[in-house]
């Protein structure tokens, strides 16, 4: 009992004091469970959210989160601090796993491409844009969120991940660039295009006006 209390206290202390990831990974490699819990507490949320937004499937997001941390358990020394942050490393694993899973299972949410403007599921079309004010009044907040979620899911992967990282995870463009291993300029242009695509999709659903950005 006292040991549990002590270990709980030291765990909290470890989480509060910012022990750097490299030291924590060293402890994990030696089998320190508290260090693993600290790393898990730090990164499980962002990794899980990223996997969820990327796949649109809660179960898959859980599996991916589990796999990402299992890799950390099995091979903690595989992370190279010279190549970037631990968060970036974990995001990278989650990104690859999600892409692979989505490609394998073809778990795509009904895809609404710009070319498929006449899709019956989202057939509000130009009329919806004209009557957007009325449509917005009719939609509840929940529907708005759901519409945005499906719109994000329907984006091509390279645009989707930028939107998830920068708009949903509030990551800086520089951080996203480091994580996705491309230039900040590429991230900025992808962001611009992704937002434009989202606006069109949302406008088709009658949620926003399709004004030029």
């Amino acid at each position, binding site marked *: 009992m006292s040991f549990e209390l002590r270990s709980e206290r030291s765990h909290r202390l470890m989480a509060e004091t910012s022990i750097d990831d490299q030291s924590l990974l060293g402890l994990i490699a030696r*089998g320190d*469970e508290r260090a*693993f*819990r600290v790393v*898990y*507490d730090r990164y*499980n*949320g962002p*990794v*899980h*959210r990223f996997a*969820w*937004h990327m796949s649109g499937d809660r179960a898959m*997001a*859980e599996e991916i*989160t*589990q796999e990402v*941390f*299992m890799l950390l*358990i*099995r091979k903690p020394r595989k992370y190279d601090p010279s190549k970037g942050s631990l968060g970036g490393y974990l995001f990278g694993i989650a990104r690859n796993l999600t892409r692979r899973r989505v490609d394998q299972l073809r778990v795509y949410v009904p895809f609404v491409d710009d070319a498929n403007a006449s899709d019956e599921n989202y057939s509000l079309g130009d009329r919806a844009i004209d009557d957007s004010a009325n449509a*917005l009044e009719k939609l509840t*907040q929940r529907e*708005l*969120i759901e*519409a*945005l*979620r499906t719109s*994000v899911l329907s984006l091509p992967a390279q645009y989707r991940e930028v939107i998830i990282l920068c*708009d*949903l*995870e*509030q990551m800086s463009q520089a951080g996203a660039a480091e994580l996705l291993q491309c230039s900040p300029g590429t991230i900025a242009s992808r962001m611009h295009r992704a*937002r434009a695509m*989202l*606006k069109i999709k*949302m*406008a088709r659903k009658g*949620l*926003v*006006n*399709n*004004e030029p*950005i």
Partner: protein
Amino acid sequence: MNQSEERLAQAFQALSAESPQSAPAEVGLALQDAFRRHHVRRRRQRRLITAGVLGACLVVAAVLLSKSRSSGLQEKQPTLATRQEQSLPNPETRSLGAVPNNTQVKSTIASLQKVHRKARPSANVVSNFTSLASYDPAFSKDGFKIVRVGLSSAELSQMGAPSYVYPASRRVLTDVVLDRDGIPIAVRTVGR
């Protein structure tokens, strides 16, 4: 920022707020369990490997030790033989039937004494080797042997060794130098 962008930003904020803040607790618990199991397995493997390596080291050490011992014994034996051979006078240089040269006999016996002292350090040598009449350097080329036996004074005198210092009934511990044919060529008395 126009109205649609504002609306989009609001939607992003709402979606972000609605997103789960962390993975379900079951995932965390399963991972903790997996972490424990992984490290228990690793520790067990490491212990096995350490034990295996230690065992292998011990086996190698034992083999090396036994090899070095056997090679040491093998080295000692040829040394003894070579010393004996070196110390023996060359019989071809002597004429057959010649009376044994006392100095040559002495040197041969002295070298044998050296070897014998090394081999039996616990024995107390009472007298030096005395050459017997049967010693003939012409016939004894190599293969000298020293045998320790208990002999009576009478037996010693029969061999031609001086035995007057001991009573006739007493058995005396004696080192007898035998040539290749087993003929005694020198003796000395040994006390303990």
